[in-house]
Structure formats: structure tokens, C-alpha cells
């Protein structure tokens, strides 16, 4: 089964094509990175995959079920999540707890297991001691970390991450990649991550999709570098 299946996708802003002939899959247990120069429509591609934007042609599908045949849980971190509403009246703990709601808890009380999950996630990003702080009072880096804690609290089957390591130092970045790798290898999570961090990520990613502008295409239109896709063992695998 595929967690993500994109087939011959094209996307236009008004009449202008920005993505063309995109085909790829992300399977359970796969850690796939998506790269490309600035303005290469990487976030646009993610938003097509998520259903936030509609492709002009082709399809982008996310599996409704996970490998255990249960409802698939999706965790998404948008780009610049750290710029979220500074005045949002919520504590760190409330926000990270909200990551558990989509685990069947919209209308139920969180269980002891949910609370333990939240605690572990906050401790994993080093924010447990800050749990009673107001989210708006945190620094950009701290907001980034609680966004990650929120997504780990959800414990999704599929991670879709848009430059989640912006503003992190290299050791935190490596620890984060380590955690993602562990999630994909051991827990069979699917991961699709936009990143600029080509070098550090090499040791962790299973597959690399690069968006490039081909010589004969319009100046803003990007498609996939077919050399690295759909090979299952590309140059970036470790």
C-alpha cells in the first residue's frame, strides 16, 4: 500500500503552470525528502498532497487507512509554523494536548495514556519545564519545538513536514532526524519532508525527490528530477 500516491500531477496558479508531471509515492516505513531551489513550489506540492490545493491535472491521494487497517492519522507541520498567532491564549501543555484530539478524542476525555504521550513528547523536545508558559511568550525556536512536540503527541501514521528544522542548531537537527528515522524504520511511519538541509539529511533519508526547472519549461514551472525518482535506492540513501 502507499500512504501517498501522486500521479502525473500538474498545478497552475491562475493560468501559469508551476508544477508539471509529478509522480511519486510514499510508503509506510519510508522517509522521503523533497528539495528544490527557493520558489520551486515545494510547499505548493505538499499543499496539493494534503488537499489544501486542487491539482489542475493528475491526482494526489492520501490513503484513508494505515497498515493496521485503521483510520490513518496525519501530522502536518506547515512552513513558518513558528510565526503562529502571538496572542493565542493557550499554554504549551494545552496546545500539545490538542495533538491527541485527532486520535479519537474530539469528544472524549484524554486518557492516562494520552497524558503520558504528551509528557513524553514535551520531554523529547526539551519543553516539559515550559509547559505552563503561554505559547505567545515563547521564542521562535521554542515555538518550533512545541509544534514538533504537538505532532509527536499525535503519533501520526504519516508525517508531512514543511521545513520543520528552520532555526534549529545542527545538533538539534540531527537529533530530530534521528527521531524521524526511528519512527519510519521501527514504527513504519511514512514521512514526506521539505528541506534545504541536503548534507545532514543524507544519512537518514530513504529517498530524495528534487524539483527542478527543465530547460524548455516556463520560468516558474518545476518538475521532478527523474534521475532520483522513482528509484528505491537513490544516491541519498545511507
Amino acid at each position, binding site marked *: 500500500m502507499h500512504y501517498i500516491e501522486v500521479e502525473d500531477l500538474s498545478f497552475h496558479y491562475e493560468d501559469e503552470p508551476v508544477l508539471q508531471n509529478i509522480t511519486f509515492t510514499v510508503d509506510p516505513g519510508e522517509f522521503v525528502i523533497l528539495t528544490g531551489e527557493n520558489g520551486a513550489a515545494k510547499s505548493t506540492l505538499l499543499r496539493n498532497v*494534503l*488537499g*489544501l490545493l486542487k491539482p489542475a491535472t493528475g491526482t494526489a491521494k492520501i490513503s484513508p487507512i494505515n497498515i493496521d487497517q485503521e483510520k490513518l492519522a*496525519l*501530522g*502536518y507541520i*506547515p512552513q513558518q*509554523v513558528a510565526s*503562529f*498567532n502571538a*496572542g*493565542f*491564549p*493557550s*499554554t504549551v501543555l*494545552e*496546545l500539545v494536548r*490538542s495533538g491527541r*484530539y*485527532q486520535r479519537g*478524542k*474530539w*469528544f472524549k476525555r484524554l486518557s492516562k495514556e494520552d497524558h503520558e504521550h504528551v509528557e513524553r513528547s514535551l520531554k523529547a523536545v526539551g519543553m516539559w519545564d515550559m509547559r*505552563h*508558559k*503561554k505559547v505567545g*511568550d515563547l521564542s521562535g525556536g521554542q515555538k518550533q519545538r512545541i509544534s514538533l512536540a504537538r505532532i509527536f503527541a*499525535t503519533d501520526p501514521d504519516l508525517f*508531512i513536514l514543511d521545513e520543520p528544522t528552520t532555526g534549529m542548531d545542527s545538533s538539534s537537527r540531527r537529533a530530530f532526524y534521528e527521531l524521524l528515522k526511528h519512527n519510519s524504520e521501527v514504527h513504519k511511519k511514512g514521512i514526506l519532508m521539505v528541506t534545504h538541509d541536503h548534507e545532514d539529511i543524507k544519512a537518514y533519508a530513504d529517498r530524495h525527490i528534487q524539483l527542478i526547472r527543465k530547460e524548455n519549461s516556463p520560468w516558474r514551472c518545476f518538475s521532478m528530477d527523474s534521475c532520483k525518482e522513482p528509484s528505491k535506492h537513490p544516491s541519498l540513501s545511507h
Partner: protein
Amino acid sequence: MFFYGFMQRAFQASFIIALIAPVLGLFLILRRQSLMADTLSHVSLAGVALGLLINVNPTVTTLLVVVAAAILLEYLRSLYKSYSEISIAMLMSGGMALALVLMGLGAGSSTVSIQQYLFGSIVTISSQQVALLAVLGVMILALYVLFRKPLYVLTFDEETAFTAGLPIKWMSIAFNVVTGVAIAVIMPIAGALLVSSILVLPAAIAMRLSKRFDLVIIVGMVIGLIGMFSGLAVSYEVGTPPGATIALIFILIFMLITAWKKARMLMKRKKNASLADH
């Protein structure tokens, strides 16, 4: 003043409004729709004018017009995602213009009634209006208790809510419709010009006092009760318009709390500086 039936009903109505205002107000503020209450109250004037023109109970026409406007608002908001205030500006002026045109068509006979809706009259409230408010109050509080978790995520970030599987479009429309219904019911009491201050100010003040989401609403209710009750009492004793007195008291509470927070921060800084000196 509690011996008078009209004052008893005014306090009952104030009590209910104080409980529901912070619930709607907080979500309006966080969804950057603080002015939506103002817009819908302007639009509701068009509903009143329409009712008076075609000789139908204005409450019915107001409800219909406001619900239609609340749905239209969500559509306009989707057209201008980054500048959601455009939808508010468009509908506010459109609603007011429609009200004025309909009033013009009514040949001036309804001017007095329209004035009542513009400025409101909490002391002429009927027991039917109190009953209608009570039903509205129970409905809004029940909806909040039931949907507070989805609403929290929707308010935090709509895209996160969408990817978590929430029907964000329907939730936004439902929220707008509930707000519209609340405004249509509260507007004849608080007045079209002041209804948004009564909805938004208690939550805005509470946001400065609490860092926890659920506590903001409870603190907002307490502030709402203090402002509404003291405003009514002052207006009774001094003879000022109740709606305006209540709005001014909320603004006074806001100023006092802002000054207190500022003073506390300065004192804290001073203390830290003197500790650093030693």
C-alpha cells in the same frame, strides 16, 4: 430597583448575555473577526427595515437576513483569505446601505422603531425576549462544551484543523450562523451600534488576564457579569443609556487592567534591577 419588573428582566437578560458573550467573543477575536459582530448587527438593521416594510415580525426577517449574511461572509472570507477584513467592510457598508434604502422605501413611518434597534433598550425588554435569550444561551453553552476541542484546533490554525480531518468550512459557516442568530437576538436589547462591544470586550479583557484557553472564557464571563450588572445599576441611578453605560464600563475595566499590568511589569523590572545591583 429590583422591585421593578423591567429591571428584573434587564438583569436576567444581562446575566445570560454575560455568559454567552465571551464564548462568541473569544472565537471572533482569535479568528480575526472582531468586527464581524458589528457587520452582522449592521446587516440585521436591514432585516429590521425589511420586516417593517413588508409588515412581518422584524425578529423573523432579521434572523433570516443575518443567517444569509453569515453564510455570505464565509464565502467572501474564502475569496480574500489573507485579508478577511475585506469581507467585513463590504458587508458592513452593504448592510447599512440596504437598511437605509429599505427605510427610505418605508416612507419614514418606521423611523422610531429603527432608532430603537440602533441604540437598543435593555430596560424595555419583554419576558418573551428573556425566554428567547435563555434558549439561545443554553444552545451556545451546550455547543461550546460539545465542540470546544475542534473549535480550539480550528482557531489555532485552519490548515492544521483541515489535515486533522475537521470539516473546517462547515464549522466556520456554523460558527458564523450561531453568531448571527445571537446578534439578531441580542441586537434589540444592546443596540446595533453597541452589540459588538458587549460581545468582544469581555473576552478581550480576559485574554490579558489568563494564559489558559478555557480560563479565558470563564474570566470573560466574570468580567461580563461585573460590567453588565454595574452598567445597569449605574444607568438606573444616573439615568444614562444602559447599552452605552455598559460599553463604557467595559472600556474602563480594560484601561484599569492594562494600567495594573503595566505597573506590575515596571515594579518587577525595578526589583530585578535592584537585585542585579546588589
